[in-house]
């Protein structure tokens, strides 16, 4: 439930073991999993761990584990749709697999050619199904993964974990309401210990909430109460507000689209800085504002961090192997999903007014001088 937000905590505190890839790697190399793998060969667990650790697929087998058409994505898109009950975003998994082939692809680094590699490629008849797959993900972002209530709860979780870890590290465990032996306390003390990480899960965190609600520390008490009683913070969608103000009608030319991008970026940077400043100044215990500014691409064009096998390829009627963004105008036109929201406590009228004032002031000023 909180795995992504937990990774965010790890990023902020530079905790290596908060990254799920790091935990998987350690478990595969040295745990009962590696014991079980030993039957398949002395170095089998190392090979599996190396494959999972790869950043971007190095060969066609890696692409099954990690790519934009990997087994994980094909699974979670169907599972999350089912479990959340959304009726849109369905995919035709059977048709996709029935049209999956292996082809060869020329590769290079920057302008320099390298040679050919094997890649998964979808047959021409799967074009519309592949488009639907990518569009489904585009819709899952706002509808499920970046739903404002979910993100609000995640922001509260992150703030709570950061406070808990800070208290434990400053020898103030007593103020958290947790016993010394609690898994969260043990993790805060030794976050790089694999055992401590494995002992943390949703049940442990949710089970801790009643204890945290009785904490001496006001911030811990309030944030845990918000989660336990589902008194989620109110959300103000700054990006939507900005778009409504400066470009209620969608731009039609590339030039207009770029202008809007630049303008939004400048305004958002300026507003974010001022909101952070206001919150830092006005918060005594609980952060008055929780800012959420992020983006996701439903289909990533070629990225140097992942390599060529990360792409979804389709064969055209002439046998050319193309990137989906080269073949499909819909996929090529999909824009990055961006959000800029700010959360504040229900009833915190000052915070609400400050958000409105800062946003409107920056809008009037044009967001200049923010480079």
């Amino acid at each position, binding site marked *: 439930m909180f795995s992504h937000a937990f990774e965010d905590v790890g990023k902020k505190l530079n905790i290596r073991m908060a990254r799920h890839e790091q935990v998987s790697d350690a478990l595969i190399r040295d745990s009962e999993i590696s014991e079980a793998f030993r039957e398949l060969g002395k170095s089998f667990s190392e090979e599996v761990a190396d494959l999972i650790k790869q950043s971007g697929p190095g060969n066609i087998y890696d692409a099954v584990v990690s790519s934009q058409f990997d087994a994980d994505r094909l699974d979670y898109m169907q599972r999350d749709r089912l479990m959340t009950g959304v009726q849109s975003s369905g995919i035709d998994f059977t048709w996709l697999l029935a049209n999956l082939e292996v082809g060869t692809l*020329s590769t290079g680094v920057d302008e320099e050619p390298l040679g050919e590699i094997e890649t998964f490629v979808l047959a021409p008849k799967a074009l519309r199904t592949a488009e639907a797959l990518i569009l489904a993900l585009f819709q899952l972002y706002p509808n499920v993964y970046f739903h404002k209530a979910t993100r609000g709860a995640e922001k509260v979780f992150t703030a709570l974990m950061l406070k808990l870890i800070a208290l434990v590290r400053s020898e103030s465990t007593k103020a958290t309401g947790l016993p010394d032996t609690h898994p969260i306390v043990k993790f805060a003390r030794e976050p790089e210990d694999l055992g401590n990480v494995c002992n943390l899960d949703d049940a442990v965190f949710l089970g801790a909430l009643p204890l945290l609600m009785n904490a001496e520390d006001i911030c811990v008490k309030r944030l845990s109460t918000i989660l336990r009683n589902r008194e989620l913070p109110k959300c103000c969608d700054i990006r939507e507000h900005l778009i409504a103000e400066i470009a209620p009608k969608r731009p039609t030319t590339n030039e207009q689209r770029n202008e809007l991008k630049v303008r939004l970026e400048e305004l958002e940077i300026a507003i974010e800085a001022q909101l952070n400043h206001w919150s830092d100044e006005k918060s005594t215990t609980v952060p008055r504002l929780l800012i959420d500014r992020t983006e996701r691409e439903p289909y990533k064009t070629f990225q140097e961090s992942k390599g060529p096998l990360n792409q979804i390829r389709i064969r055209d009627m002439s046998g050319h192997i193309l990137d989906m963004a080269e073949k499909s105008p819909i996929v090529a036109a999909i824009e990055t999903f961006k959000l800029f929201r700010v959360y504040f406590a229900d009833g915190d009228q000052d915070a609400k007014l400050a958000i409105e004032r800062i946003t409107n002031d920056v809008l009037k000023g044009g967001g200049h001088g923010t480079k």
Partner: protein
Amino acid sequence: MVQNKSDREKAAAIVRDAGGQIVGRTRFQKIAFLLELAGLGEGFQFEYKHYGPYSEELAAAISSAAILGLVQVEDREASWGGWYSIYTSTDKSADIVNQQRQTLAHEATKIGAVELELAATAAYLNAFEGLQDAWTETARRKPEKASQERLARAKEAYRRLLLIETPEKLPAII
């Protein structure tokens, strides 16, 4: 008053200091990495990715720099069918530039993209993963790129970079 540079200004400054132009996103990332390693960087954090050391923050920063016009980006079709980018600095300011930084960045722009990737990867594996025989591990991880000839060229290019005086010595892997 001295103002702190934003990430996008730092990213754009790398292009400016490399002689005003860098061909290729991979080259851009590896040059930035080598500058960090040599103590001449901008504080970007690098991780091991598909093409060796890579900074997500830097990629976002240069993209943001392009949106705001701090660099120009031209995308061209490569002979092998893919695309590559050319970054050109739009910075006409007379900022005081570190000579060592300029020399290292400019020298690195002359290295072939694959050779630079191999050299930067070996340097990364030594500096961040503590591998003594970093070239062997580089060859193991990048079999499709690390032919004997390319490795020899990568080592020779790295040897030239080692000759440049820098605040931190680049890993002595040769």
